């Protein structure tokens, strides 16, 4: 299941296990540093072996997968896009992933500008002039893909690491219809 070779994704929500059952004393939460420790050591080793470009591709793809699964298992597909955004906001806050806000929403043309404050991945990181939330980019693309059935380009244009206080994502449709 976890270690078998694969050509196609076999991820499913059940792989996350029953945390409540498994951690009766320690509970369901870990500090953010622990999450980041894993992400940034992983990123470090991946860049060393695969290079930056491929590492980013992998992070994006994994984020996208997560986004799709997040809609399927947590948010739920909504008939109305505004309702979807509102529910998403609520869950991201509840699960302490980040504070999602909408700066611009031109639903007719599929143009969105979203900000995530107190982002799980990057808030508080040293300012290095880079936008580093590639996993988030993928995550948002995955959310929108599952909700709308359309593929979106998601680009982080401001990040804590580039000196901003929020991560800002510019979103536009990339014209690829995705079936499924």
């Amino acid at each position, binding site marked *: 299941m976890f270690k078998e070779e694969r050509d196609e994704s076999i991820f499913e929500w059940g792989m996350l296990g029953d945390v409540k059952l498994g951690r009766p004393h320690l509970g369901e939460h870990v500090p953010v540093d622990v999450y980041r420790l894993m992400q940034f050591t992983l990123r470090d080793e991946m860049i060393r072996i695969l290079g930056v470009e491929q590492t980013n591709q992998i992070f994006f793809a994994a984020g996208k997968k997560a986004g799709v699964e997040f809609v399927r298992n947590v948010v739920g597909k909504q008939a109305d896009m*505004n*309702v979807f955004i*509102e529910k998403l906001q609520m869950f991201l*806050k509840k699960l302490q992933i980040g*504070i999602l*806000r*909408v*700066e*611009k*929403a031109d639903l007719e043309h599929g143009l969105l*500008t979203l*900000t995530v*404050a107190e982002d799980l991945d990057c808030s508080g990181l040293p*300012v290095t002039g880079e936008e580093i939330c590639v996993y988030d980019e993928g995550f948002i693309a995955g959310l929108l893909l599952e909700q709308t059935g359309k593929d979106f380009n998601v680009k982080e244009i*401001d990040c804590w690491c580039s*000196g*901003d*206080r*929020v991560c*800002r994502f510019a979103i536009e449709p990339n014209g690829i219809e995705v079936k499924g």
Partner: protein
Amino acid sequence: MLTIEEQYIDQLTEAIYLLVSGKQTQTIAIPEDLPDNEIRQLYEYFNKMIVELDKASDFSYSLSRGELDYEAPKGKMVLLQSYKNLQASLKHLTWVTQQIAGGDFSHKVDFMGDFSNAFNEMTRQLKEAFETIQQQNKKLEDANATIRADKERIQTLLNSILPVKVIDELNEHGYSAPRYFENVTVFFSDFVGFTKQSSDIDPVTLIDELNSIFKEFDHIVTEMDGERIKTIGDAFLAVWGMHLPLEDHAERAIEAALRMRQFLHKRNENWMLKWEVRIGLHTGNLVGGIVGETKFIYDVFGDTVNIASRMESNSEPMKINISDEVYALVKDKFMTTQRGSIFVKGKGECGMHFVEGRL
């Protein structure tokens, strides 16, 4: 040891003075002969700061005027970042407000201090007010539906009491004046032996019987464009050519009489209780108008009505008795049998004819 010429310090001091006293500040022109030393570096950083501050003040000035689409300048100064954050919050609030304005009251504003509470409370109250209005609208709609239904019921009732033209007149002017009608045909019918039968049959059945027969009579009258004026006990009075001018009023009235007779024949074949009518018709002039104020009824008056009534009383069971005047109008349309005449007060001798059927 670096020695500084006083003028350089003066220049910087002046620029900073302008800056803190709120005046327009410009970058300082760096003297060309200034060597590449710490002073030059200070100049350069100072100028850079002025540029960044300029961008930040332009940005903040636009925001203060509500220009939320102003493109946030790039830069790392905390001041600029804070304005950018403010812009993001304002844009988000704009979006949330638009959602609420669009009727989606489930949106909330988080992590914006007292403002969040105030805004969310406002949304809650808006939602409440909106729901109250919706409930009231629903009630109003229900009430309107009831009124509409009542109005329809009243209209139906009125239609059965008064001619449509008279109702229109009442609706428009609040009253309906009596009117003189020339050349109309009056129809009278009466059941044979009604008084005798009615003592044998229980009253409820009797009313049921009358109802079912008059319902069909009404139907036939309407079909033939006549107007039912009233029923008097077991008698039925209708007129052709009053509010709706008809050239063939007499022919239509006789056609209706034939159909009524036909209806009764058929009914009697299949029904335990047998009913026979006498029918009489006369053509002439009359006056029509509303009688009474609280319990009004539309009625017709004049010799024409009386003569029609006499035609009926001088008719025979299941016979249609018409006057000379009617006969003159329809003799080419129907087979008739000449009868004797009766004396009518104020008119003299009046000939009578039985209608046998269509020619």
